[in-house]
């Protein structure tokens, strides 16, 4: 039985400079449907409406950070099963291990390659235990 392909991604990133490149990488280059949120609070409101297959979540954001956002998403029954991939510039091994222990699907480190960002997400999506 073939799995549903990755189609809809909610990108949560506060930096407009990163937003615009990641959005281009995922949608124009990667062929995904992307909604961009500039903060965790915005994402918590948008996610149940947009119904993403996967959430790409920046770790370090002002206000509610990525970890707090992840915990809030997992408490929402509408979103608890939605895989989350963290995006971070702080990619020390103990931090990556912590993000995985929290239950994320994976971690993407910045800087990412715009050419391959969507493929990296697809690879993580395909690696899920379903």
């Amino acid at each position, binding site marked *: 039985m073939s799995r549903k392909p990755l189609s809809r991604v909610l990108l949560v990133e506060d*930096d407009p*400079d*990163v937003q*615009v*490149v990641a959005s*281009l990488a995922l949608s*124009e*280059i990667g062929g995904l449907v992307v909604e961009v949120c500039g903060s965790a609070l915005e994402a918590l409101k948008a996610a149940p409406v947009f119904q993403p297959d996967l959430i790409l979540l920046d770790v*370090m954001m*002002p206000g509610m950070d990525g970890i707090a956002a992840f915990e809030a998403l997992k408490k929402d029954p509408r979103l608890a099963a939605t895989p989350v991939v963290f995006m971070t*510039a702080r990619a020390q091994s103990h931090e990556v291990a912590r993000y995985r222990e929290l239950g994320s699907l994976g971690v993407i480190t*910045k*800087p*990412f390659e*715009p*050419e391959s960002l969507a493929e990296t997400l697809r690879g993580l999506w395909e690696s899920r235990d379903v």
Partner: protein
Amino acid sequence: MTAGQRERLESLRRAYTRDLPARVRAIGEAAASLEPGDREKLQSLHHLVHRLTGSAAIYGFTGLSRAASALEALVYSALAGTAGFEPERGPSLADLVVALKSELAAATASSKQEKGDP
């Protein structure tokens, strides 16, 4: 990646490059305006530097990103209360701001060379 997508990325990079001096200037001003115990200003500086660390690397300015990352680490330590701005070992806040400005000059010169500007 198509030629059009490559051009879109290049266009974003050009716009980012144009804005770089203002970003580094804002960081220099934020660092210069720090006052002892003013956590809000420190957080604001950290936010500016953190953004530059991440975005500069994505746009291909690795030297600038590294310089920003060193500054970010010191500001982060100051926020966490584990270091001051003039640590016993390693560069001070002022040194790191100077290094950042130096990397900006190198990045700007390199971009002009790529474009063939005199």
